């Protein structure tokens, strides 16, 4: 019975299928909102789904400079790890797998899609991809520091003396004394997290790695057909996973009676977060250069996260 239930968790509810569908929907919302902000109608909400299925229907060309296994395996590994992350994030109070070290596991699992993109890019053997992966790696290094500081601050705040690295404890703590976002000492961390989310997902100002104008889609240059579809699905799921993570870390306290409306509340909050941090910034700014991005993350965003860590550290 447990196997069936966990299978359901893995494949259907918070796992692969739900994340994929909702990720695509969230990507659609993001594109629509950005379009509306540029005063144009914008694609229908199910456009990313169309993109995904169209790509499934296309030919997958493997260039002869590419290493076949890594080339085809990378998107799948990215997809698998994203599906796994979702199991640790409490979707409306329901977590499939929870232990005492969720945050560190999430921290590591989030690096795997990045690594998958990098391995995929470098295995395609194109020089554009080479430049793309170096930028992707520097972006990863850039947002990792503030991300870690935020997680430590939340763990310290939620856990008090013995650390709360598990998402469930964070959720219960928030249920007990109000959302993390409304604690004034945690507001800088929330802002830092809001800025980390677009970098991790790779939306406009921070998509230095996949700059389609300068280095023609960076690591994804040699991808076509279903492998490319999988990568596009990965980036859509990343959008959902990261906004889900933000909601569960900072807005986890909202609890209604039933699971169903908890899930709906969770989804609505995810949409709000996506619109707030990914779409608005996307519509308003232009792409950064790589060292500006690195300097931005390691000075401003890390500073915000650090000052909230210090505030929490002094017990506020």
């Amino acid at each position: 019975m447990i196997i069936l239930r966990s299978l359901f968790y893995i494949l259907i509810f918070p796992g692969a299928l739900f994340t994929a569908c909702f990720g695509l929907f969230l990507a659609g919302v993001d594109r629509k909102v950005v379009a509306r902000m540029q005063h144009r109608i914008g694609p229908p909400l199910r456009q990313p789904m169309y993109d995904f299925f169209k790509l499934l229907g296309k030919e997958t060309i493997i260039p002869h400079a590419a290493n076949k296994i890594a080339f085809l395996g990378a998107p799948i590994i990215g997809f698998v790890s994203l599906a796994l992350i979702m199991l640790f994030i409490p979707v409306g109070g329901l977590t499939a797998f929870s232990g005492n070290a969720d945050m560190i596991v999430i921290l590591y699992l989030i690096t795997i899609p990045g690594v998958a993109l990098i391995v995929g890019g470098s295995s395609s053997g194109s020089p554009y991809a080479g430049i793309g992966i170096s930028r992707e790696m520097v972006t990863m290094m850039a947002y990792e520091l503030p991300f870690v500081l935020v997680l430590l601050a939340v763990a310290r705040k939620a856990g008090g003396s013995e650390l709360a690295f598990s998402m469930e404890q964070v959720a219960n703590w928030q249920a007990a004394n109000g959302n993390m976002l409304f604690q004034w000492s945690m507001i800088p961390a929330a802002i830092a997290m809001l800025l980390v989310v677009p970098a991790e997902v790779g939306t406009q100002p921070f998509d230095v790695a996949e700059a389609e104008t300068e280095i023609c889609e960076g690591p994804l240059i040699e991808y076509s057909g279903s492998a490319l579809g999988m990568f596009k699905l990965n980036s859509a799921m990343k959008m959902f996973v990261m906004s889900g993570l933000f909601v569960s870390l900072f807005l986890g306290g909202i609890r209604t009676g039933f699971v169903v409306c908890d899930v709906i509340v969770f989804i609505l909050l995810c949409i709000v977060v996506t619109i707030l941090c990914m779409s608005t910034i996307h519509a308003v700014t232009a792409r950064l250069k790589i060292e500006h991005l690195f300097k931005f993350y390691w000075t401003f965003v890390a500073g915000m996260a650090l000052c909230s860590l210090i505030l929490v550290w002094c017990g506020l």
Partner: protein
Amino acid sequence: MIQHFPVLAVMLLFLGAFCVEIFGSNNAGIRNTIAMLAATIALVLIYALIKPVMIDGEIISYWMGNWAPVSGYAIGIGYEVDALSLFFALLVVTTFWLSGVYSMSYMAKDHHLGHYYTLYLMLSGSVLGLVMTGDIFNMFVMIEIMTFASVALTAFRNENEGTLEAGFKYLVIGSMGSSFTLTGIALIYGQCHTLNMAQISAQLCTGMTPTTIMAFALIVAGFGVKSYIVPFHTPAADAYMVAPTSVSMIFSGMVNKAGVYGMIRVLYIIFRAMDKSSVQMLVVIFGAVTMFIGVTMALAQHDFKRLLAFHSISQIGYVITAIGLGTALGITGGLFHAMNHTLFKGLLFLTAGAVLYATGTTNLDKLGGLSKKMPKTCICFLIGAFSISGLPPFNGFVSKWLVYQATYTKAVETGNFVYAIVTVVALIVSVMTLASFIKVTQAVFFGQLPAELKKTQEVPASMLVPMYLMSALCVLCGIFYPIVNKYLLHPATEATLNVTNYIDKMMGDGYAAMMGAQNIEVAPVQFSYWNPIVWLILFVIIFVAAFLVITGSKSSRGQVLNPGVKYDPKYATFFSGEEELFSQVGGSDLFWGFKTDWKGYYKVLEGLHSGIVTDYAGWTVMATAIITVCMFIFMR
């Protein structure tokens, strides 16, 4: 019968060394058989010790020439193998056995291999002896043999440029370290009138006199040099690069572990200084600085093996930080990371050797696209790279997680913000490790194949077998952590923290109680959520689900086209329409974004690594002076 095994193993290796020198110097057959025979028997002897020491928790003590202690004074040289020393002995034995198998074909092209195998057996025997001895002077003798064997092995291929210089640097810094240890031991001997570690630690329970503090500082500095902590790390970087790969694998797997073992032995058991928070802070800061400088230097390297060398230094930083915390969780994390480091760093050095053997160069800018020519090596490399950067299914993840948890719980318990900073530094260093291995993956295995490397083939089987073994171990240790913890880590941690039964076993019961040493109860470290089997099923299920989506039934999906025709432009790489020309994005210029942002830091760092021996010697002395001053302040 069991207690004879430790000495037997060590003596066997030294005997093998002499036999190889005498009989095998011109006949390859005899030489190889003697070397491998000695290595295998030593392996079997040490593995036989697992049952008594690890499972039954018994400590093996053996007095040379049966000179048992007389009325509370230890005269003879005692061998004592408790869980901690057996843990390191297992690492040592496994590493040098694999290196032996690897060097069978790797060194085949070299000449006068007789000397090579003699030095190889001497080095292994000395490190094994160092790890298992109970007598501090005997430990010093083993350190001497180890140092000089590794100096000779560093400069083995003396026709290559840079080997003699590296050997010379290693000699100078190494012997400075040994001399510090020797003076320390002399002071200890003057104070405690004995050389047996157990008795020394028993006598020091009462209190530390200025001479013992001086001795403690010097010995700690000596072992610091041996484990290549930052101020002393410079010879390691050169030595690993120029030494033959099977030797640099021994260096990074065994030699710096011997240094770490010495540090643990000295800090925890002999001087029991780790209950003082200030000493802990000092060790942790040294560890954190080593971590950070090691990885940032690695990011700037152009050579494959030199990059791996700097990584060894930074991973040792991890181990030292974890050990410096003093908590049970910290030691477990540190020991497990030491073990994992031996595994994945050994694997990475073997792959580097394979690349060197197949292409003749390890310069990152000249290599590229080798995954098509050497698929097996590429897979082993990827496993090693992912485990060193700590990605979940592999062993690096578990040990690094233990280290983070330990540092952060320490930070919270002591309320000291420095440990939180150390946790953050540890996490960032882990990302930078991942970054530098992405750089190597792109530079060596993926990317485009240069014209002159067209003819490279896969390395012979005898080099691949150790690689497979090590990658299997990497994956297994990562997944079956609870078993590893129960049989290896927990007993070792308990042995580190409980000094009394170490002393009683050597000096007879009740001796420790007389001296007032006390025990700390060690709760086993659980890692509850990590039930790997569920994870494995998880991974496989979704992997299969996703694979179906990608390849799917041929009819409805676009087919996956294999690049059949060679120069059909459809399968050529996209160069904005140009003819396909070779333009490999070299490994060295991958992180210019990061380096331009940190220009100031890198200018200073490259300035410090000047390459002149006198600078390094200056640092060694300066660092020892700092340690001594700190010890005097802290141990008061």
